[in-house]
């Protein structure tokens, strides 16, 4: 789970409006760049590819508790683990499918809301006003907080009897009848989406704020001269100009949210309620709770293939859309 952190673009690099200067090219030492890249490449292999390959190998083995100490001795099962995972009329496959659908719904809602909130906040703070820097700083707090500390606080707030959420919703605003549960049962889905959006919208806000800096002011001035209102300016200038940023942002948010393990794990513990049984937790349970790591690995590989498919499809579709625009 720490892997995500390493690929998070450094926020500081985003904010200044860079009109990047191309580094001057030098012809001598054609091999040098590749040599310099070599350590990074080797580390990349070590950190990313080797575990992936091991994971794939595991998925073809019957890696249960009897063999975890010495993986080599685990018997090969061929596609056995995969067959169990995708037999949707049997309990294991059914549970996986259910979890997959929950995750799709969760991801769509979380990414959509995060993007919407991020866009709205970025546009609203585009114009200078007193306290803007402070407000932007406050907006970024959820992104800067350690995940565990933040989510455990949410889990306290969602407690039924003593939690802040029920206190506000029922005791003060009288919106809910009785104290509903948030961490067990059906509402747990809403709780998960809430925390996930709270955690990821600042990232959307950050990227979009950076993107907004690159839109020339003249465009807005010209549009205003032509009589375009705020809404039209947003639709005709801001959103199209943010397209490249959005393309990456939505993809990254999608991948992070789909795979998010920390939020549901800290919120619900080892056994997530059925309504919030997202795929990362489900795979964790399939491997760690039933001690069947081969089966968990097979599910991971299936997930990997799905994400690969979605990502390639998305990149092709958006690139084509951009070409058509150009």
């Amino acid at each position: 789970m720490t892997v995500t952190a390493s690929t998070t673009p450094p926020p500081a690099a985003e904010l200044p409006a860079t009109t990047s200067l191309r580094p001057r090219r030098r012809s001598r030492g054609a091999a040098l760049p590749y040599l310099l890249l070599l350590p990074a490449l080797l580390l990349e292999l070590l950190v990313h590819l080797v575990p992936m390959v091991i994971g794939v190998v595991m998925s073809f083995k019957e890696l249960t508790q009897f063999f975890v100490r010495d993986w080599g001795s685990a018997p090969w099962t061929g596609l056995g683990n995969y067959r169990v995972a995708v037999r949707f009329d049997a309990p294991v496959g059914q549970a996986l499918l259910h979890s997959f659908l929950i995750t799709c719904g969760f991801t769509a809602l979380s990414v959509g809301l995060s993007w919407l909130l991020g866009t709205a906040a970025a546009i609203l703070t585009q114009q200078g006003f007193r306290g803007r820097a402070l407000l932007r700083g406050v907006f970024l707090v959820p992104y800067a907080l350690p995940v565990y500390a933040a989510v455990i606080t949410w889990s306290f707030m969602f407690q039924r009897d003593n939690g802040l959420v029920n206190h506000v919703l029922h005791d003060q605003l009288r919106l809910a009848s009785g104290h509903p549960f948030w961490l067990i049962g059906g509402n747990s889905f809403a709780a998960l989406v809430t925390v996930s959006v709270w955690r990821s919208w600042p990232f959307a806000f950050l990227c979009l704020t950076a993107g907004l800096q690159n839109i020339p002011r003249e465009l807005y001035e010209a549009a205003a001269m032509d009589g375009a209102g705020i809404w039209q300016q947003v639709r005709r200038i801001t959103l199209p100009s943010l397209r490249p940023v959005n393309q990456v942002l939505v993809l990254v948010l999608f991948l992070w949210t789909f795979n998010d393990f920390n939020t549901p794990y800290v919120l619900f513990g080892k056994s997530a309620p059925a309504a919030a049984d997202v795929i990362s937790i489900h795979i964790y349970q399939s491997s760690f709770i039933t001690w069947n790591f081969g089966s968990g690995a097979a599910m991971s590989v299936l997930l990997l293939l799905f994400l690969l498919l979605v990502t390639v499809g998305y990149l092709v579709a958006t690139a084509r859309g951009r070409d058509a625009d150009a």
Partner: protein
Amino acid sequence: MPNRRGLAALTAALALTASACGGGAAIGGDGGNAHPRTLTYWASNQGASLADDRRVLAPELARFQRRTGIKVKLEVIGWPDLLNRVLAATISGQGPDVLNIGNTWSASLQATGALLPFDPRLLTAIGGRNRFAPAALAATGAADRDPAAVPLYSLSYGLYWNRALFRRAGIPRPPTTWAELTADGRRLTGGGHYGLAIEGGNYAENAHHAFILGRQHGADFFTADGRPRFNTPQAVAAVKQYVDFMAKDRITAPGDAEYAAQQSLQDFATGRAAMLMWQSAASSLKAHGMPGDAYGVAPIPFQTANASGPTRVDSMVAGINLAVFRNSQNRDGAVKFVRFMTSTAEQKTLNAAFGSIPPVKDAQDDPAFATPDLTTLRQVLAHGAAPLPQVPDESQFETLVGTAIKDLFADAAAGRPVTDASVRAALTKAQQQLPTS
């Protein structure tokens, strides 16, 4: 730039999914004595907090160092993480030298081969198996194999009851049958108070009570050859009886369905609940501000008065075992440490500090363990406690059945009916998650 970042994110995501259960290479090598001067010890959380454990253990570890010259690096690990840490250590081969395990995991961990078996030679080195109470030894692994660990602290379930609340409700003594418990519970429920507190979101507690009630109903959760059998009519009856404290009898607060961090203990200590079924709760209750004379400890009720035979079970053999990690690079030192921790003197000190019962017979005579509540718990352990099934799938039983019960409590709390059919469906689903079923 965007494409490159997309690619990086993609790579990361792929690695993340693929490594979700990967990481580390398999190291099957055996241990030895390459590092004879140090030991790493993973202790479970026995006191009111992790710091409390460190405070109790530090002087003892210093004593061990003075005697043997071996420095013990202590790490106290909370219960929610301990099994995962042990599992990760097993997979990677990188672990502690000596570790505490919940005694119910003994057979599961024994099956992995990660723990050094206490063969007759090793048992002799620590003073022989006769030093330990038979009930505690029964929970150290499969019956036909050398123990995977030795008992360190013993615990048993007791029914904790609040003297003042019982007096106020005009109930002279604690219940001895479940019918009495529910009747008493109803009288004790009302005005924000509840009869019985249950840790409904905690799968381990749920599984333990399912086991105890199961034995009373004549349910075995595993066949003789270790195959799971979670959904027998007896098992359904046992689980339903447990969930019904909330669903039907309504002597348990609906909010207990999400308790997983000892909130039920707190509810009992503050008088919000009048009864609690717990293992050696004295030190935790004290930490929550409840004095020892405010409550009594009785055996957990039976189905009928004068229960006898194999259904006369009112606790599991609970406790903590001490194990040596097979990959230890200081095996001799590790065995010395086990010998030290199970010595009569250390057993008295440690069990007295943690409010548990010494599994070493010589240590049990100490007056520290003759308090009324520890006497009750000791008698339960000796006469009414059964070990959880010592089969490889035991830890999966705890997580799967415990989680199924957690979901049933969620149904009960939300007012959805809990029926024989819904209990059977939940237990069947739990059993189907096991690869061997």
